[in-house]
């Protein structure tokens, strides 16, 4: 399996669900490869054997074999198998089987031209009050700085790296404040459009520590290619340290000055 994944040039996945997704990619490509080789071999032989120089007189009927029907049924069957065996359950896992919020790190992520911003509820676990009247490009989450719950909220703005702990479920609630962006972490095998007017959650569990980047995978203007977010996957202790320190520093309220 690993061999095939290398063969497909896939960068090593860093999330728990990534492996299943890569498996599907491998199986589909194997199917494609088999089909292609089969057809292509037939093609080459047919063209060579039945070139005019080798076969001056054409046969009105050609072949009477029914092999093609079986091949077509076979293709349909394998596609059905991949569909029911892999794609549907994997998808269901991605969009339905969310971990409980209390067992997970919950982050609001909002895209803006051309930056990713993250917002944690802080140690109290309560989101500060948010309203559009406070929203601006420097306060993308529209946090009310005077709200008591907001005092310990933490935000990272303008592509500043945020932290997540390794081996723990992370839920990101993706939205956008202006145009459609797309929150894509190739190495985590996570992709979700950030649609303004909607908030759509995704979840993943990082399996190794390191620095990761967030691609914007939806054309969003002339800074689209520069819209790169970052996050660090660290162990729980380091995460806690960052979390507390960041929150003590005044959290969202301070950032908003």
């Amino acid at each position, binding site marked *: 399996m690993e061999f095939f994944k290398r063969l497909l040039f896939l960068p090593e996945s860093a999330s728990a669900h990534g492996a299943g997704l890569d498996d599907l990619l491998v199986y589909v490509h194997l199917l494609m490869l088999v089909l292609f080789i089969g057809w292509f071999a037939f093609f080459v032989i047919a063209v060579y054997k039945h070139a005019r120089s080798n076969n001056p007189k054409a046969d009105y009927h050609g072949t009477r074999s029914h092999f093609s029907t079986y091949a077509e049924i076979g293709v349909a069957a394998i596609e059905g198998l991949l569909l029911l065996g892999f794609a549907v359950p994997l998808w269901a896992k991605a969009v339905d089987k969310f971990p409980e919020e209390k067992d997970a790190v919950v982050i609001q992520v909002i895209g803006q031209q051309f930056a990713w911003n993250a917002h944690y509820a802080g140690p109290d676990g309560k989101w500060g009050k948010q309203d559009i009247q406070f929203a601006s490009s420097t306060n993308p989450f529209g946090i009310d700085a005077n709200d008591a719950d907001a005092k310990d909220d933490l935000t990272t703005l303008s592509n500043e790296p945020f932290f997540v702990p390794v081996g723990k479920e992370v839920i990101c609630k993706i939205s956008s404040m202006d145009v459609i962006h797309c929150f894509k972490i190739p190495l985590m095998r996570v992709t979700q459009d950030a649609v303004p007017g909607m*908030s759509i959650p995704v979840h993943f569990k990082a399996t190794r520590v390191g620095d990761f980047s967030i691609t914007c995978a939806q054309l969003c203007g002339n800074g689209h290619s520069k819209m790169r977010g970052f996050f660090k996957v660290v162990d729980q202790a380091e995460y806690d340290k960052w979390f507390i320190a960041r929150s003590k520093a005044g959290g969202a309220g301070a950032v908003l000055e």
Partner: protein
Amino acid sequence: MSESSHSHAADPAADHDHGHDLESHKKLYWAVGAALLVGTVVTVLARYMEFNSVSFTIAVAMFIATVKAFLVAGYFMHLISEKKAIYLTLGTTAAFLVGMVGLILWSDMDLPRGSQPKTHYVP
């Protein structure tokens, strides 16, 4: 199927000489026109009745509109006695239209769990 049984109704070629048929059709056209006017009035009245249920009112209004549409399409546009090719075309169109509306609405409702209209500003 209906081609042979109804072809006299409105087919220009078939009933070219049937002046009498056309006379009776002219009466029908007036009657359909009157029915359409009545339908309009009934819809408007229904709107002022303020039935207690919104969906019921919508259903009534759309039902009347559909009946009216059927009258126009069926009689003025001679659809009740058209040729197979046209039924096929319109049937296909109707199917795709229903598919489009239905699937768009379905997509709009079936979202990943936990999705909501933007909540960031209004928690």
